[in-house]
Protein backbone atom coordinates (compact mmCIF):
# COMPACT_ATOMS: atom_id res chain seq x y z
CA UNK A 1 0.00 0.00 0.00
CA UNK A 2 2.71 2.50 0.94
CA UNK A 3 4.81 1.64 -2.11
CA UNK A 4 2.02 2.49 -4.54
CA UNK A 5 1.70 6.26 -4.26
CA UNK A 6 5.48 6.68 -4.45
CA UNK A 7 5.61 4.63 -7.61
CA UNK A 8 2.81 6.45 -9.37
CA UNK A 9 4.13 9.95 -8.69
CA UNK A 10 7.69 8.95 -9.59
CA UNK A 11 6.59 7.35 -12.83
CA UNK A 12 4.81 10.54 -13.82
CA UNK A 13 7.63 12.94 -13.09
CA UNK A 14 10.57 10.92 -14.44
CA UNK A 15 8.71 10.30 -17.66
CA UNK A 16 8.07 14.01 -17.93
CA UNK A 17 11.73 14.86 -17.40
CA UNK A 18 13.14 12.24 -19.70
CA UNK A 19 11.23 13.04 -22.87
CA UNK A 20 10.42 16.75 -22.85
CA UNK A 21 13.10 17.57 -25.42
CA UNK A 22 11.07 15.87 -28.15
CA UNK A 23 8.30 18.12 -29.54
CA UNK A 24 5.92 15.23 -30.20
CA UNK A 25 6.42 13.99 -26.65
CA UNK A 26 5.80 17.48 -25.30
CA UNK A 27 2.49 17.54 -27.14
CA UNK A 28 1.58 14.22 -25.52
CA UNK A 29 2.37 15.58 -22.07
CA UNK A 30 0.44 18.78 -22.76
CA UNK A 31 -2.55 16.75 -23.82
CA UNK A 32 -2.38 14.68 -20.65
CA UNK A 33 -2.09 17.86 -18.57
CA UNK A 34 -5.13 19.33 -20.30
CA UNK A 35 -7.03 16.12 -19.64
CA UNK A 36 -6.02 16.29 -15.98
CA UNK A 37 -7.20 19.91 -15.73
CA UNK A 38 -10.55 19.01 -17.25
CA UNK A 39 -11.04 16.03 -14.94
CA UNK A 40 -10.16 18.02 -11.86
CA UNK A 41 -12.04 21.14 -12.95
CA UNK A 42 -15.53 20.52 -11.59
CA UNK A 43 -14.43 19.30 -8.17
CA UNK A 44 -11.82 22.05 -7.93
CA UNK A 45 -14.36 24.80 -8.65
CA UNK A 46 -16.87 23.50 -6.08
CA UNK A 47 -14.31 22.74 -3.36
CA UNK A 48 -12.61 26.11 -3.86
CA UNK A 49 -15.77 28.23 -3.96
CA UNK A 50 -17.75 26.43 -1.26
CA UNK A 51 -15.08 25.16 1.14
CA UNK A 52 -11.59 26.57 0.66
CA UNK A 53 -12.50 30.21 0.01
CA UNK A 54 -15.12 30.21 2.83
CA UNK A 55 -12.43 29.12 5.32
CA UNK A 56 -10.34 32.15 4.35
CA UNK A 57 -13.45 34.35 4.31
CA UNK A 58 -14.41 33.20 7.81
CA UNK A 59 -10.92 33.95 9.05
CA UNK A 60 -11.06 37.40 7.47
CA UNK A 61 -14.59 38.09 8.69
CA UNK A 62 -13.56 37.27 12.26
CA UNK A 63 -11.63 40.56 12.29
CA UNK A 64 -14.70 42.56 11.31
CA UNK A 65 -17.94 43.60 12.91
CA UNK A 66 -20.83 42.85 10.55
CA UNK A 67 -24.61 42.69 10.98
CA UNK A 68 -25.31 41.67 7.34
CA UNK A 69 -27.28 44.88 6.67
CA UNK A 70 -24.65 47.64 6.96
CA UNK A 71 -21.13 47.25 5.58
CA UNK A 72 -18.50 45.40 7.65
CA UNK A 73 -16.28 47.41 10.01
CA UNK A 74 -12.69 46.36 10.71
CA UNK A 75 -12.27 45.79 14.45
CA UNK A 76 -8.88 44.00 14.54
CA UNK A 77 -8.84 41.34 17.26
CA UNK A 78 -11.84 42.73 19.16
CA UNK A 79 -13.97 39.65 18.41
CA UNK A 80 -11.31 37.37 19.87
CA UNK A 81 -10.86 39.61 22.92
CA UNK A 82 -14.60 39.48 23.41
CA UNK A 83 -14.56 35.69 23.02
CA UNK A 84 -12.02 35.22 25.80
CA UNK A 85 -14.02 37.41 28.18
CA UNK A 86 -17.47 36.15 27.16
CA UNK A 87 -18.51 33.93 30.09
CA UNK A 88 -21.48 32.14 28.47
CA UNK A 89 -19.62 31.41 25.23
CA UNK A 90 -16.52 30.18 27.08
CA UNK A 91 -18.81 27.98 29.17
CA UNK A 92 -20.36 26.60 25.97
CA UNK A 93 -16.86 25.48 24.92
CA UNK A 94 -16.08 23.84 28.25
CA UNK A 95 -19.50 22.11 28.24
CA UNK A 96 -18.84 20.90 24.70
CA UNK A 97 -15.38 19.57 25.57
CA UNK A 98 -16.66 17.79 28.69
CA UNK A 99 -19.60 16.23 26.84
CA UNK A 100 -17.37 15.29 23.90
CA UNK A 101 -14.86 13.55 26.18
CA UNK A 102 -17.67 11.59 27.84
CA UNK A 103 -19.10 10.65 24.43
CA UNK A 104 -15.73 9.49 23.09
CA UNK A 105 -14.86 7.41 26.16
CA UNK A 106 -18.27 5.69 26.28
CA UNK A 107 -18.44 5.21 22.53
CA UNK A 108 -14.98 3.60 22.42
CA UNK A 109 -15.62 1.46 25.49
CA UNK A 110 -18.98 0.05 24.39
CA UNK A 111 -17.86 -0.24 20.76
CA UNK A 112 -14.82 -2.22 21.85
CA UNK A 113 -16.66 -4.51 24.27
CA UNK A 114 -19.36 -5.32 21.73
CA UNK A 115 -16.84 -5.80 18.92
CA UNK A 116 -14.72 -8.20 21.01
CA UNK A 117 -17.82 -10.20 22.01
CA UNK A 118 -19.18 -10.36 18.45
CA UNK A 119 -15.73 -11.24 17.11
CA UNK A 120 -15.68 -14.28 19.40
CA UNK A 121 -18.94 -15.59 18.03
CA UNK A 122 -18.27 -18.53 15.79
CA UNK A 123 -21.14 -18.38 13.31
CA UNK A 124 -21.34 -15.89 10.47
CA UNK A 125 -25.07 -15.65 11.13
CA UNK A 126 -24.52 -14.38 14.66
CA UNK A 127 -21.92 -11.87 13.50
CA UNK A 128 -24.12 -10.50 10.72
CA UNK A 129 -27.18 -10.34 12.97
CA UNK A 130 -25.49 -8.34 15.72
CA UNK A 131 -23.71 -6.11 13.21
CA UNK A 132 -27.07 -5.26 11.64
CA UNK A 133 -28.71 -4.61 15.01
CA UNK A 134 -25.96 -2.31 16.25
CA UNK A 135 -25.89 -0.43 12.95
CA UNK A 136 -29.66 0.26 12.87
CA UNK A 137 -29.61 3.41 15.08
CA UNK A 138 -27.31 5.03 12.51
CA UNK A 139 -30.11 4.74 9.93
CA UNK A 140 -32.25 7.26 11.80
CA UNK A 141 -31.51 10.96 11.34
CA UNK A 142 -30.28 12.87 14.38
CA UNK A 143 -33.51 14.86 14.15
CA UNK A 144 -35.62 11.69 14.35
CA UNK A 145 -33.53 10.36 17.22
CA UNK A 146 -33.90 13.64 19.10
CA UNK A 147 -37.67 13.48 18.66
CA UNK A 148 -38.31 9.93 19.85
CA UNK A 149 -35.67 10.07 22.58
CA UNK A 150 -37.29 13.28 23.80
CA UNK A 151 -40.53 11.32 24.29
CA UNK A 152 -38.79 8.31 25.88
CA UNK A 153 -36.86 10.49 28.33
CA UNK A 154 -39.87 12.69 29.15
CA UNK A 155 -39.93 13.18 32.90
CA UNK A 156 -43.65 12.60 33.47
CA UNK A 157 -44.88 10.46 30.57
CA UNK A 158 -41.69 8.84 29.27
CA UNK A 159 -41.32 5.08 29.13
CA UNK A 160 -37.85 5.21 30.71
CA UNK A 161 -39.06 6.87 33.92
CA UNK A 162 -42.03 4.46 33.91
CA UNK A 163 -39.72 1.43 33.97
CA UNK A 164 -37.35 3.06 36.46
CA UNK A 165 -40.41 3.76 38.61
CA UNK A 166 -41.16 0.03 38.67
CA UNK A 167 -37.63 -0.45 40.01
CA UNK A 168 -38.25 2.19 42.67
CA UNK A 169 -36.21 4.94 40.96
CA UNK A 170 -38.93 7.51 40.51
CA UNK A 171 -38.96 10.79 38.64
CA UNK A 172 -35.47 11.21 37.20
CA UNK A 173 -35.20 14.75 35.72
CA UNK A 174 -33.50 13.56 32.52
CA UNK A 175 -33.94 16.62 30.35
CA UNK A 176 -35.29 19.07 32.89
CA UNK A 177 -32.21 19.50 35.12
CA UNK A 178 -28.90 20.98 33.84
CA UNK A 179 -26.71 17.98 34.65
CA UNK A 180 -29.47 15.54 33.69
CA UNK A 181 -29.80 17.14 30.25
CA UNK A 182 -26.04 16.92 29.66
CA UNK A 183 -25.98 13.25 30.68
CA UNK A 184 -29.06 12.42 28.62
CA UNK A 185 -27.67 13.99 25.46
CA UNK A 186 -24.35 12.18 25.94
CA UNK A 187 -26.22 8.88 26.33
CA UNK A 188 -28.35 9.53 23.24
CA UNK A 189 -25.32 10.35 21.08
CA UNK A 190 -23.51 7.24 22.34
CA UNK A 191 -26.62 5.11 21.73
CA UNK A 192 -26.71 6.21 18.10
CA UNK A 193 -23.00 6.38 17.33
CA UNK A 194 -21.72 3.26 19.05
CA UNK A 195 -22.46 1.27 15.89
CA UNK A 196 -19.84 3.33 14.08
CA UNK A 197 -16.95 2.43 16.40
CA UNK A 198 -18.32 -1.11 16.68
CA UNK A 199 -18.15 -1.69 12.91
CA UNK A 200 -14.64 -0.20 12.76
CA UNK A 201 -13.39 -2.42 15.60
CA UNK A 202 -14.96 -5.59 14.22
CA UNK A 203 -13.22 -4.95 10.90
CA UNK A 204 -9.91 -4.39 12.69
CA UNK A 205 -10.27 -7.46 14.92
CA UNK A 206 -11.11 -9.63 11.93
CA UNK A 207 -7.89 -8.56 10.25
CA UNK A 208 -5.68 -9.66 13.18
CA UNK A 209 -3.58 -12.42 11.58
CA UNK A 210 -4.57 -15.89 12.77
CA UNK A 211 -0.97 -17.17 12.96
CA UNK A 212 -0.26 -14.62 15.71
CA UNK A 213 -3.30 -15.83 17.63
CA UNK A 214 -2.30 -19.48 17.17
CA UNK A 215 1.21 -18.73 18.41
CA UNK A 216 -0.28 -17.09 21.49
CA UNK A 217 -2.54 -20.07 22.12
CA UNK A 218 0.42 -22.46 21.86
CA UNK A 219 2.32 -20.32 24.38
CA UNK A 220 -0.61 -20.82 26.75
CA UNK A 221 -2.25 -17.39 26.58
CA UNK A 222 -5.91 -17.39 27.66
CA UNK A 223 -8.64 -15.30 25.98
CA UNK A 224 -8.14 -12.26 28.26
CA UNK A 225 -4.35 -12.33 27.89
CA UNK A 226 -4.68 -12.63 24.09
CA UNK A 227 -7.07 -9.69 24.04
CA UNK A 228 -4.95 -7.38 26.18
CA UNK A 229 -1.48 -8.29 24.90
CA UNK A 230 -2.13 -9.10 21.27
CA UNK A 231 -5.45 -7.99 19.84
CA UNK A 232 -5.67 -4.53 21.46
CA UNK A 233 -2.10 -3.51 20.54
CA UNK A 234 -2.66 -4.72 16.99
CA UNK A 235 -5.87 -2.72 16.53
CA UNK A 236 -4.59 0.39 18.35
CA UNK A 237 -4.29 2.43 15.12
CA UNK A 238 -8.02 1.87 14.52
CA UNK A 239 -8.85 2.75 18.13
CA UNK A 240 -6.94 6.01 17.79
CA UNK A 241 -8.60 6.77 14.46
CA UNK A 242 -12.06 6.08 15.92
CA UNK A 243 -11.27 8.28 18.93
CA UNK A 244 -10.29 11.21 16.73
CA UNK A 245 -13.29 10.91 14.40
CA UNK A 246 -15.66 10.57 17.36
CA UNK A 247 -14.03 13.56 19.07
CA UNK A 248 -14.23 15.75 15.97
CA UNK A 249 -17.90 14.87 15.52
CA UNK A 250 -18.73 15.36 19.19
CA UNK A 251 -17.08 18.79 19.26
CA UNK A 252 -19.60 19.81 16.56
CA UNK A 253 -22.58 18.56 18.58
CA UNK A 254 -25.61 20.60 17.51
CA UNK A 255 -28.75 18.74 16.39
CA UNK A 256 -29.63 16.84 19.59
CA UNK A 257 -29.27 19.72 22.08
CA UNK A 258 -30.81 22.21 19.64
CA UNK A 259 -33.87 20.04 19.08
CA UNK A 260 -34.30 18.50 22.54
CA UNK A 261 -33.42 21.30 24.95
CA UNK A 262 -32.75 24.40 22.82
CA UNK A 263 -29.45 24.52 24.71
CA UNK A 264 -31.13 24.46 28.12
CA UNK A 265 -32.21 24.18 30.85
CA UNK A 266 -30.62 27.59 31.21
CA UNK A 267 -27.46 27.24 29.15
CA UNK A 268 -26.57 23.74 30.39
CA UNK A 269 -26.50 22.16 26.93
CA UNK A 270 -25.61 25.24 24.89
CA UNK A 271 -22.74 23.71 22.93
CA UNK A 272 -20.08 25.67 21.05
CA UNK A 273 -21.97 25.28 17.77
CA UNK A 274 -25.23 26.45 19.34
CA UNK A 275 -23.41 29.49 20.78
CA UNK A 276 -22.02 30.19 17.30
CA UNK A 277 -25.48 29.74 15.73
CA UNK A 278 -27.01 32.15 18.24
CA UNK A 279 -24.32 34.78 17.68
CA UNK A 280 -24.53 34.51 13.89
CA UNK A 281 -28.04 33.59 12.87
CA UNK A 282 -30.07 34.89 15.80
CA UNK A 283 -28.13 38.01 16.89
CA UNK A 284 -26.76 38.67 13.38
CA UNK A 285 -23.22 39.25 14.68
CA UNK A 286 -21.48 37.55 11.77
CA UNK A 287 -18.01 38.79 12.68
CA UNK A 288 -18.20 37.49 16.23
CA UNK A 289 -19.81 34.23 15.09
CA UNK A 290 -16.93 33.79 12.63
CA UNK A 291 -14.42 34.24 15.45
CA UNK A 292 -16.23 31.52 17.44
CA UNK A 293 -16.16 29.28 14.36
CA UNK A 294 -12.42 29.86 13.91
CA UNK A 295 -11.73 28.94 17.55
CA UNK A 296 -13.75 25.75 16.99
CA UNK A 297 -11.64 25.03 13.90
CA UNK A 298 -8.43 25.52 15.87
CA UNK A 299 -9.73 23.17 18.55
CA UNK A 300 -10.49 20.49 15.96
CA UNK A 301 -7.14 20.94 14.24
CA UNK A 302 -5.48 20.57 17.65
CA UNK A 303 -7.27 17.25 18.14
CA UNK A 304 -6.07 16.12 14.72
CA UNK A 305 -2.54 17.24 15.57
CA UNK A 306 -2.72 15.34 18.82
CA UNK A 307 -3.61 12.24 16.81
CA UNK A 308 -0.42 12.74 14.81
CA UNK A 309 1.72 12.91 17.92
CA UNK A 310 -0.10 10.05 19.61
CA UNK A 311 0.14 7.80 16.57
CA UNK A 312 3.96 8.13 16.72
CA UNK A 313 4.28 7.51 20.43
CA UNK A 314 1.43 5.33 21.62
CA UNK A 315 0.17 3.30 18.73
CA UNK A 316 1.67 0.01 17.73
CA UNK A 317 2.09 -0.50 13.99
CA UNK A 318 2.79 -4.00 12.84
Amino acid at each position, binding site marked *: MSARPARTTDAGSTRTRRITHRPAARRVIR*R*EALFGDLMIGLALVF*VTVFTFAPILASLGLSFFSWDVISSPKFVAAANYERFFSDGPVLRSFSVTIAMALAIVVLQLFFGLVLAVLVNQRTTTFGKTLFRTVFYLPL*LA*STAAVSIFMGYLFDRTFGAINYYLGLLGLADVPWLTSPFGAQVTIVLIVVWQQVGFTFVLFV*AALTSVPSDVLEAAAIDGAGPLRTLLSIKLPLISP*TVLFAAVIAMINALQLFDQP*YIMTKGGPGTATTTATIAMYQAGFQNLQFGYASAIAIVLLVLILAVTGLQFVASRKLVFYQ
Partner: protein
Amino acid sequence: MTTTVISRRRPVLKVGKIIGLVVLLLAAVVALGPLLWSLTTSLRTPAEAFNNPPQWFPVRADFSNYAAVFQQIPIGQFFVNSVIVTVLIVAGQTVTCTLSGYAFAMVSFPGRNAIFGIFLATMMVPLQTIIIPVFVIIKTLGLSDNLLSLVIPALGSAFGTFLMRQYFMQMPRELGEAARIDGASHFGVFFQVYARMAAPAISTLAILNFSGFWAEFYRPLIFLQSQSNFTLPLGLVGLQGNLGTGSISVVLAGVIIAMIPSVLLFIVAQRYFIEGVTAGSFR
Protein backbone atom coordinates in the same frame (compact mmCIF):
# COMPACT_ATOMS: atom_id res chain seq x y z
CA MET B 1 -0.25 -31.42 33.30
CA THR B 2 -2.24 -30.58 30.19
CA THR B 3 -5.35 -32.27 31.50
CA THR B 4 -5.39 -30.09 34.62
CA VAL B 5 -5.01 -26.95 32.53
CA ILE B 6 -7.89 -27.92 30.30
CA SER B 7 -10.17 -29.04 33.10
CA ARG B 8 -9.47 -25.79 34.93
CA ARG B 9 -10.11 -23.56 31.99
CA ARG B 10 -13.15 -25.11 30.31
CA PRO B 11 -15.84 -24.14 32.82
CA VAL B 12 -14.44 -20.59 32.97
CA LEU B 13 -14.61 -20.37 29.19
CA LYS B 14 -18.18 -21.59 29.17
CA VAL B 15 -19.30 -19.10 31.82
CA GLY B 16 -17.44 -16.37 29.95
CA LYS B 17 -19.24 -17.27 26.72
CA ILE B 18 -22.63 -17.16 28.38
CA ILE B 19 -21.93 -13.79 30.03
CA GLY B 20 -20.73 -12.53 26.66
CA LEU B 21 -23.95 -13.60 24.97
CA VAL B 22 -26.07 -12.03 27.73
CA VAL B 23 -24.20 -8.74 27.33
CA LEU B 24 -24.70 -8.83 23.56
CA LEU B 25 -28.41 -9.57 23.89
CA LEU B 26 -28.84 -6.76 26.44
CA ALA B 27 -27.03 -4.37 24.10
CA ALA B 28 -29.27 -5.50 21.25
CA VAL B 29 -32.37 -4.73 23.35
CA VAL B 30 -30.99 -1.25 24.15
CA ALA B 31 -30.14 -0.61 20.50
CA LEU B 32 -33.49 -1.80 19.15
CA GLY B 33 -35.78 -0.71 22.00
CA PRO B 34 -36.20 2.97 21.09
CA LEU B 35 -36.67 2.14 17.40
CA LEU B 36 -39.24 -0.55 18.15
CA TRP B 37 -41.02 1.75 20.60
CA SER B 38 -41.25 4.44 17.88
CA LEU B 39 -42.73 1.93 15.43
CA THR B 40 -45.28 0.41 17.79
CA THR B 41 -46.28 3.75 19.31
CA SER B 42 -46.88 5.13 15.82
CA LEU B 43 -49.50 2.38 15.53
CA ARG B 44 -51.38 3.38 18.70
CA THR B 45 -54.25 5.84 18.72
CA PRO B 46 -53.18 9.41 19.60
CA ALA B 47 -55.23 9.23 22.80
CA GLU B 48 -53.34 6.28 24.26
CA ALA B 49 -49.92 6.92 22.69
CA PHE B 50 -48.36 8.23 25.90
CA ASN B 51 -50.00 5.59 28.11
CA ASN B 52 -47.61 3.42 30.08
CA PRO B 53 -46.64 0.65 29.93
CA PRO B 54 -45.68 1.05 26.27
CA GLN B 55 -47.30 -1.38 23.90
CA TRP B 56 -44.42 -3.40 22.46
CA PHE B 57 -46.51 -5.54 20.15
CA PRO B 58 -49.18 -3.82 18.06
CA VAL B 59 -52.21 -5.89 19.02
CA ARG B 60 -54.70 -3.55 17.40
CA ALA B 61 -52.56 -1.67 14.90
CA ASP B 62 -54.05 1.72 14.12
CA PHE B 63 -52.75 3.19 10.87
CA SER B 64 -54.74 6.42 11.15
CA ASN B 65 -51.62 8.30 12.30
CA TYR B 66 -50.04 7.66 8.93
CA ALA B 67 -53.00 9.30 7.23
CA ALA B 68 -53.07 12.09 9.81
CA VAL B 69 -49.44 13.06 9.31
CA PHE B 70 -50.13 13.68 5.62
CA GLN B 71 -53.10 15.90 6.50
CA GLN B 72 -51.49 17.89 9.30
CA ILE B 73 -48.24 18.78 7.58
CA PRO B 74 -47.10 18.55 3.95
CA ILE B 75 -44.98 15.48 4.71
CA GLY B 76 -45.36 14.31 1.10
CA GLN B 77 -43.77 17.61 0.06
CA PHE B 78 -40.97 17.20 2.65
CA PHE B 79 -40.34 13.72 1.33
CA VAL B 80 -40.13 14.92 -2.27
CA ASN B 81 -37.83 17.78 -1.20
CA SER B 82 -35.51 15.36 0.60
CA VAL B 83 -35.45 13.06 -2.43
CA ILE B 84 -34.62 15.95 -4.78
CA VAL B 85 -31.79 17.27 -2.60
CA THR B 86 -30.29 13.87 -1.81
CA VAL B 87 -30.48 12.48 -5.35
CA LEU B 88 -28.95 15.60 -6.91
CA ILE B 89 -26.06 15.64 -4.41
CA VAL B 90 -25.39 11.91 -4.73
CA ALA B 91 -25.43 12.12 -8.54
CA GLY B 92 -23.33 15.29 -8.60
CA GLN B 93 -20.66 14.02 -6.24
CA THR B 94 -20.48 10.71 -8.07
CA VAL B 95 -19.47 12.60 -11.20
CA THR B 96 -17.17 15.24 -9.69
CA CYS B 97 -15.40 12.93 -7.24
CA THR B 98 -14.90 10.08 -9.70
CA LEU B 99 -13.39 12.44 -12.26
CA SER B 100 -11.13 14.26 -9.81
CA GLY B 101 -10.17 11.15 -7.85
CA TYR B 102 -9.09 9.50 -11.08
CA ALA B 103 -7.07 12.53 -12.16
CA PHE B 104 -5.23 12.73 -8.83
CA ALA B 105 -4.43 9.02 -8.95
CA MET B 106 -3.68 8.37 -12.61
CA VAL B 107 -2.99 11.56 -14.60
CA SER B 108 0.10 13.73 -14.37
CA PHE B 109 -0.55 17.44 -14.72
CA PRO B 110 1.22 20.48 -13.33
CA GLY B 111 0.17 21.54 -9.84
CA ARG B 112 -1.33 18.16 -9.03
CA ASN B 113 0.26 17.86 -5.61
CA ALA B 114 -0.45 21.47 -4.67
CA ILE B 115 -4.13 21.17 -5.59
CA PHE B 116 -4.37 17.87 -3.75
CA GLY B 117 -2.86 19.60 -0.72
CA ILE B 118 -5.67 22.17 -0.84
CA PHE B 119 -8.23 19.36 -0.96
CA LEU B 120 -6.64 17.59 2.01
CA ALA B 121 -6.49 20.82 4.01
CA THR B 122 -10.26 21.29 3.74
CA MET B 123 -11.13 17.79 4.91
CA MET B 124 -10.93 18.40 8.65
CA VAL B 125 -12.76 21.73 8.54
CA PRO B 126 -16.10 21.69 10.39
CA LEU B 127 -19.22 22.82 8.57
CA GLN B 128 -19.74 25.57 11.16
CA THR B 129 -16.51 27.26 10.11
CA ILE B 130 -17.62 27.76 6.52
CA ILE B 131 -21.37 28.19 7.02
CA ILE B 132 -21.44 32.00 7.22
CA PRO B 133 -19.52 32.66 3.97
CA VAL B 134 -21.54 29.94 2.22
CA PHE B 135 -24.73 31.56 3.55
CA VAL B 136 -23.57 34.89 2.09
CA ILE B 137 -22.78 33.27 -1.28
CA ILE B 138 -26.23 31.64 -1.31
CA LYS B 139 -27.88 35.01 -0.58
CA THR B 140 -25.82 36.72 -3.28
CA LEU B 141 -26.80 34.08 -5.83
CA GLY B 142 -30.46 34.63 -4.88
CA LEU B 143 -30.83 31.03 -3.73
CA SER B 144 -32.05 31.67 -0.17
CA ASP B 145 -34.97 29.45 0.77
CA ASN B 146 -34.36 27.30 -2.30
CA LEU B 147 -33.53 23.60 -2.39
CA LEU B 148 -30.60 24.39 -4.66
CA SER B 149 -28.96 26.21 -1.73
CA LEU B 150 -28.41 22.77 -0.21
CA VAL B 151 -27.41 21.09 -3.47
CA ILE B 152 -24.95 23.44 -5.17
CA PRO B 153 -22.45 23.90 -2.29
CA ALA B 154 -22.35 20.10 -1.81
CA LEU B 155 -21.58 19.14 -5.42
CA GLY B 156 -17.83 18.89 -4.83
CA SER B 157 -16.18 17.05 -1.98
CA ALA B 158 -12.60 16.78 -0.84
CA PHE B 159 -13.39 13.64 1.11
CA GLY B 160 -15.15 12.01 -1.85
CA THR B 161 -12.23 12.90 -4.10
CA PHE B 162 -9.84 11.38 -1.57
CA LEU B 163 -11.91 8.21 -1.30
CA MET B 164 -12.00 7.73 -5.07
CA ARG B 165 -8.30 8.56 -5.44
CA GLN B 166 -7.37 5.87 -2.92
CA TYR B 167 -9.40 3.34 -4.86
CA PHE B 168 -7.98 4.26 -8.27
CA MET B 169 -4.43 4.13 -6.90
CA GLN B 170 -4.80 0.43 -6.19
CA MET B 171 -5.59 -0.30 -9.83
CA PRO B 172 -2.87 -1.53 -12.20
CA ARG B 173 -1.58 1.22 -14.51
CA GLU B 174 -0.68 -1.36 -17.14
CA LEU B 175 -4.34 -1.71 -18.20
CA GLY B 176 -4.58 1.94 -19.15
CA GLU B 177 -1.19 1.92 -20.86
CA ALA B 178 -2.22 -1.07 -22.95
CA ALA B 179 -5.47 0.63 -23.94
CA ARG B 180 -3.54 3.80 -24.87
CA ILE B 181 -1.26 1.77 -27.15
CA ASP B 182 -4.36 0.31 -28.75
CA GLY B 183 -5.39 3.85 -29.59
CA ALA B 184 -7.83 4.74 -26.81
CA SER B 185 -8.06 8.41 -25.79
CA HIS B 186 -7.35 9.57 -22.23
CA PHE B 187 -11.05 9.85 -21.58
CA GLY B 188 -11.67 6.50 -23.24
CA VAL B 189 -9.19 4.84 -20.89
CA PHE B 190 -10.88 6.43 -17.90
CA PHE B 191 -14.43 5.72 -18.98
CA GLN B 192 -14.06 2.27 -20.52
CA VAL B 193 -11.34 0.75 -18.38
CA TYR B 194 -11.12 2.31 -14.94
CA ALA B 195 -14.52 3.86 -14.18
CA ARG B 196 -16.18 0.46 -14.54
CA MET B 197 -13.75 -1.11 -12.12
CA ALA B 198 -14.51 1.64 -9.62
CA ALA B 199 -18.15 0.62 -9.17
CA PRO B 200 -17.68 -0.60 -5.55
CA ALA B 201 -16.02 2.67 -4.48
CA ILE B 202 -18.70 4.69 -6.29
CA SER B 203 -21.40 2.70 -4.46
CA THR B 204 -19.70 3.32 -1.11
CA LEU B 205 -19.47 7.05 -1.79
CA ALA B 206 -23.10 7.18 -2.92
CA ILE B 207 -24.30 5.37 0.23
CA LEU B 208 -22.18 7.62 2.47
CA ASN B 209 -23.64 10.70 0.79
CA PHE B 210 -27.17 9.36 0.94
CA SER B 211 -26.93 8.67 4.69
CA GLY B 212 -25.36 12.04 5.36
CA PHE B 213 -27.62 14.28 3.31
CA TRP B 214 -30.91 12.44 3.85
CA ALA B 215 -30.47 13.04 7.59
CA GLU B 216 -29.05 16.55 7.35
CA PHE B 217 -30.48 19.12 9.75
CA TYR B 218 -27.98 21.98 10.17
CA ARG B 219 -27.86 23.47 6.67
CA PRO B 220 -31.62 23.13 6.03
CA LEU B 221 -32.24 24.91 9.35
CA ILE B 222 -30.12 27.85 8.23
CA PHE B 223 -30.86 27.98 4.48
CA LEU B 224 -34.61 27.23 4.31
CA GLN B 225 -37.42 29.44 5.60
CA SER B 226 -40.76 28.43 4.10
CA GLN B 227 -42.37 25.20 5.21
CA SER B 228 -43.05 24.11 1.63
CA ASN B 229 -39.28 23.90 1.08
CA PHE B 230 -38.45 21.92 4.22
CA THR B 231 -36.68 18.59 4.01
CA LEU B 232 -37.87 15.71 6.22
CA PRO B 233 -35.67 16.22 9.34
CA LEU B 234 -36.51 19.92 9.50
CA GLY B 235 -40.19 19.32 8.78
CA LEU B 236 -40.49 16.64 11.47
CA VAL B 237 -38.94 18.87 14.11
CA GLY B 238 -41.42 21.56 13.07
CA LEU B 239 -44.27 19.06 13.32
CA GLN B 240 -43.23 18.15 16.85
CA GLY B 241 -43.22 21.83 17.79
CA ASN B 242 -46.65 22.49 16.23
CA LEU B 243 -48.42 19.62 17.88
CA GLY B 244 -46.89 19.79 21.33
CA THR B 245 -47.20 16.54 23.22
CA GLY B 246 -50.81 15.89 22.18
CA SER B 247 -50.38 13.41 19.35
CA ILE B 248 -46.93 11.95 19.54
CA SER B 249 -48.12 8.93 17.60
CA VAL B 250 -48.63 11.19 14.57
CA VAL B 251 -45.11 12.63 14.92
CA LEU B 252 -43.70 9.11 15.29
CA ALA B 253 -45.55 8.05 12.12
CA GLY B 254 -43.60 10.83 10.38
CA VAL B 255 -40.36 9.62 11.96
CA ILE B 256 -41.00 6.10 10.66
CA ILE B 257 -41.87 7.36 7.17
CA ALA B 258 -38.60 9.31 7.07
CA MET B 259 -36.64 6.16 7.99
CA ILE B 260 -38.16 3.88 5.35
CA PRO B 261 -35.79 4.79 2.48
CA SER B 262 -32.72 4.34 4.71
CA VAL B 263 -33.91 0.95 5.90
CA LEU B 264 -34.78 -0.24 2.38
CA LEU B 265 -31.40 0.89 1.09
CA PHE B 266 -29.66 -0.78 4.02
CA ILE B 267 -31.39 -4.06 3.23
CA VAL B 268 -30.19 -4.09 -0.38
CA ALA B 269 -26.78 -2.48 0.08
CA GLN B 270 -25.70 -3.30 3.64
CA ARG B 271 -22.20 -4.09 2.44
CA TYR B 272 -21.62 -0.52 1.22
CA PHE B 273 -22.92 1.01 4.47
CA ILE B 274 -20.36 -1.08 6.38
CA GLU B 275 -17.66 -0.22 3.85
CA GLY B 276 -18.53 3.43 4.21
CA VAL B 277 -17.66 3.28 7.90
CA THR B 278 -14.28 1.72 7.27
CA ALA B 279 -13.59 3.76 4.12
CA GLY B 280 -12.56 6.70 6.24
CA SER B 281 -9.85 4.77 8.04
CA PHE B 282 -7.08 5.23 5.53
CA ARG B 283 -4.26 3.17 6.87
